[in-house]
């Protein structure tokens, strides 16, 4: 090889460029990662700053006239109540569907059925709202009437039944449908990760399919299902539009799930009140948003923590 001076200089220049390129590229990608942390911190900080006027305001000036706590507490109650209903309905259903897809459906169909459930997640929340309002609520009213007539002694079904069907229970059902795909998808994933050997060992011992699932698949996937349910809970807590449209909210704190007076939820209340709000009211709404942020953040963190711990300790592979 003949190395002329120009070639050597070219090589040196290329080398310098390569080093600079590496530094710049590493720098920008690291910066992008850090930016995400900053955004997350900024969410908390800016919400807090804008919530300060509400925190300082005298009780009678806050919407409702009972102070910030008095304003947010019933909303928080409604948020949690609707989400718990959603979770109670969705979790068993999701586990059943996940098992159906992972262990019961014919192999060739399993993937297609998985897509079908995933499609539920693709439907925008406003669509669920309109659907819940026009399709679901009227179809649930006969059920509510029957419940209040026959099971009215249970506080949950005290009635009188709402004639429109836009009740806490309906909102819970809509939320259940909305979180169903995420809980199903995560549960399905953990069920599919069950070491094949465990399952085959159980089958070889003469267990039926259900016994195999009961003693090999479910114990293995339990913590995965728990975290899936928690992620679903996080979604349900923050869901806005569907609840805003479906629920006929009056602000009462009640466990009656089928009546016409219902507590609102934090996100739905923000969506309904914000467009007309000014001044201190905006600050109050932002304060309620901050509460929601902190709660969902906590729930999600806990869920991820459970998932990560599980990943570390699972004996698979």
């Amino acid at each position: 090889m003949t190395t002329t001076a120009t070639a050597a200089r070219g090589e040196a220049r290329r080398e310098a460029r390569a080093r600079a390129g590496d530094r710049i590229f590493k720098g920008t990608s690291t910066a992008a990662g850090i930016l995400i942390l900053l955004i997350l911190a900024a969410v908390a900080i800016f919400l807090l700053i804008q919530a300060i006027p509400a925190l300082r305001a005298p009780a009678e000036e806050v919407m409702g006239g009972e102070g910030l706590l008095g304003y947010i507490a019933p909303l928080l109650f409604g948020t949690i109540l609707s989400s718990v209903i959603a979770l109670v309905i969705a979790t068993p259903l999701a586990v059943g569907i996940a098992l159906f897809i992972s262990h019961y459906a014919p192999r060739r169909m399993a993937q297609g059925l998985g897509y079908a459930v995933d499609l539920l997640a693709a439907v925008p929340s406003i669509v669920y709202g309109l659907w819940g309002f026009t399709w679901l609520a009227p179809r649930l009213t006969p059920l509510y009437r029957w419940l209040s007539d026959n099971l009215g002694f249970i506080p949950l079904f005290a009635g009188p039944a709402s004639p429109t069907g836009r009740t806490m229970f309906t909102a819970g059902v809509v939320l259940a449908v909305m979180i169903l795909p995420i809980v199903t998808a995560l549960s399905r994933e953990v069920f599919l990760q069950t070491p094949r050997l465990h399952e085959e060992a159980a089958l070889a011992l003469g267990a039926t399919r259900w016994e195999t699932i009961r003693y090999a698949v479910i114990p293995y996937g339990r913590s995965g299902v728990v975290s899936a349910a928690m992620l679903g809970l996080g979604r349900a807590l923050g869901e806005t539009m569907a609840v805003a449209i479906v629920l006929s909210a009056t602000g009462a704190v009640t466990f009656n799930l089928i009546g016409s007076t219902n507590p609102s939820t934090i996100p739905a209340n923000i969506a309904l009140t914000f467009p007309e709000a000014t001044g201190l009211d905006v600050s109050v709404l932002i304060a309620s948003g901050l509460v929601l942020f902190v709660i969902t953040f906590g729930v999600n963190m806990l869920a991820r923590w459970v998932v990560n711990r599980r990943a570390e300790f699972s004996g698979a592979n």
Partner: protein
Amino acid sequence: MAKLIDVSDLNIYYGDFLAVEDVTMTIEPRAVTALIGPSGCGKSTFLRSLNRMHEVIPGARVEGKVVMDGQDLYGSDIDPVTVRRQIGMVFQRPNPFPTMSIYENVAAGIKLNAKRMKKSDLDELVERSLRGANLWNEVKDRLNRPGAGLSGGQQQRLCIARAIAIQPDVLLMDEPCSALDPISTLAVEDLIEQLKLEYTIVIVTHNMQQAARVSDKTAFFNLAAVGKPGKVVEIDDTATIFSNPSQKATEDYISGRFG
């Protein structure tokens, strides 16, 4: 273009773990040096430290000197990228770029480095490299097909063509035939035989017959116990190592008593 490499007092680490201890050897130009030894003794680690591929692994580092052309490859002013342009490498499993055609794979060293070259020069370089890798006649009619479509042996020769296309001085081969069938292995061994006329070649192999067939010099690596660092037990002419080794451990290994 082939060059001599002088390794002295080389210690290779993964984090705090000393993987290879105190290697001193001279790698002759225009010759094949084979590195043999049991699994985990550090042959591949040593090979990868010759072109500074070792430090790609997080936490990996090296102490000592590797001198080529009077220059310490681990000198503070040396860019590992430049070292790798002078010392090419062929891996255990053929790894052509799946998104590139056969032609683009051979030209990858030029294209990926954004060097400018006339189309006719590039065509010539690709042909020369493919001929050099004994692959031209098999692929000349389908240069635009994906490289991943070739057989395993052809893919490995494609990777060799890719490595020699950047005109390195030294060629490192990390068990280049271990994923190949006997016929492809033979083709690659024939190729090594030809390449040593122009390049300094270092090859790691688990196959003792292969070492005996293709190499001029052989270095035997071993480790005292699991968790202890690997060391060079003996380095000598291949004929001597295989017929009359000076160390008992070498003889035991070659005669198949362990490893």
